[in-house]
């Protein structure tokens, strides 16, 4: 059996008194891409927040290569090897492109072929031209590249991508998809949250579908691709391609 890079078991997460995630469980295999799909409000981002430590799960367990990380502080979880490309990108607008990257540098010794500043700029040449510019002045697409670069330079064992195609022009979305494939080919384990299920089904190996805070489907991508009923029922017609 393949190594489980990230595993959630019976996770319950609350926002205050409101119960958002109900006994969520799935496992991401090492060097694979797991697509987390579902409509708006299905609990996808809450799930990402639970993994990253922004919201401590009230019950259940989250493990990273067997190490429990549930309820740890975000900085500790990051140090253990979870990298986040958050929804809305959230680059640091008053830092330069270069500063956004160098402050996120970590875990170089833990990785076989660590991401360095230069390697990130090789991956995203458009950032190299703007390294001294304030990140807040970049275009949406460039900010997305920067957010991905910022997560990678921390040399994560598991990369969480929360809606990386949101609000981007089709050409840029294609570039994001290319990048994700490239990272996957390089052996990066990835959890990909997407509204754009076309993109997600294109690159994913495994699929988890959320509906109102519960996992309603877990399985290989092939079982979803041609299952129009499943797509219509849980993903809605607006995003099925």
């Amino acid at each position, binding site marked *: 059996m393949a190594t489980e890079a990230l595993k959630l078991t019976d996770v319950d997460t609350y926002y205050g008194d409101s119960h958002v995630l109900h006994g969520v469980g799935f496992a991401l295999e090492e060097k694979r891409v797991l697509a987390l799909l579902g409509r708006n409000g299905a609990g996808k981002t809450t799930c990402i927040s639970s993994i*990253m*430590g*922004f919201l401590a799960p009230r019950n259940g367990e989250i493990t990273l290569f067997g190490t429990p990380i549930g309820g740890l*502080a*975000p*900085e500790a979880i*990051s*140090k253990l090897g979870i990298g*986040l490309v*958050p929804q809305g990108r*959230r680059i*640091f*607008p*008053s*830092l330069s492109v270069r*500063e*956004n990257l*160098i*402050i*996120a540098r*970590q*875990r170089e010794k833990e990785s076989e072929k660590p991401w360095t500043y230069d390697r990130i700029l090789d991956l995203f040449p458009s950032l190299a031209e703007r390294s001294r510019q304030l990140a807040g002045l970049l275009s949406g697409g460039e900010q997305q590249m920067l957010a991905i670069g*910022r*997560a990678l330079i*921390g040399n994560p064992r598991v990369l969480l991508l929360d809606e990386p195609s949101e609000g981007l022009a089709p050409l840029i979305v294609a570039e994001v998809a290319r990048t994700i494939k490239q990272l996957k080919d390089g052996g990066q384990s990835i959890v990909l949250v997407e509204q754009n299920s076309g993109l997600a089904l294109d690159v994913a190996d495994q699929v988890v579908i959320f509906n109102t805070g519960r996992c309603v489907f877990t399985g290989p991508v092939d079982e979803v691709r041609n299952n129009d009923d499943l797509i219509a029922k849980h993903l809605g017609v607006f995003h099925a391609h």
Partner: protein
Amino acid sequence: MPMQFWIIQSLNSLALGGLLFLLASGFSLIFGLMRIANLTHGAFFMLGAYFGATALRSFDWIDLWVAAIGSGLALAVIGGFLERFVLRKLGNNPQGQVLVTLGMSFIISDACLVIWGGDPIPIPTPHALQAPTFLFGFAFPTYRLVLVGCAIAVAIALYLLLERTRLGAMIRAGVDDMQMTRAIGIPISRLFTVVFCLGAGVAGMGGVLGGPILSAYPGLDADMLPLALIVVILGGVGSLVGAFLGSFIIGFTYTFGSALFPDLAYVILFLPMIIIIAFRPQGLFGRRAS
């Protein structure tokens, strides 16, 4: 009004502005990063002045500069303790933070009163700086010129620390987006302690450097803190440039307001602040909260 009046008042304004910057820069950084309105900050300034005055009285070999650096270090340590062992416990509770920092400032005030009594303790101007400097036919109090230079030097040092170092970039990242800063593995609690020590230290140093003008006296904290608050509101929280310009704007407004319209000094001081809050709530140089 004779020309000498305008020139001297301008220099007084610059000197007050410089002192306000030493107080307000730390307040602004702490508020910007930690979202704590540290009402103990005026007490740090006063405590610095008392430490400096005591050191200068007790040891012949200590001069004003050594006293200022020593007080700054002592206040950095005290500030660090308060942050680690008191403020840390409050988490994200703004009312608790306001009450606790205000309470700590009262405790420090009373402790100062008990230890140093109710009479002002003068801090002498260094001998070398007592004679006035003549420039363009006007006499300038030399120490005030030097004080402005000190404030500018501290401003440049803080600017370089924040804008040119990796630590500074981490602090600015924390001001931008605390949660994401943690998510890239930056130990935010250590950053908090560093910034709190830095702010308290600069305030303590300011208390000593202001000594030859203000001396150390009970109530110094309460005289200075509101001015620093106005500076920060005017300049925008978390903005060093804002704190710098705001300090000198308030330095001029307060000095000339008190000299020309003594009855209206507070109106002149608070009216611009109210106008700014009404029309530009993020301050002149602050960014709108996202």
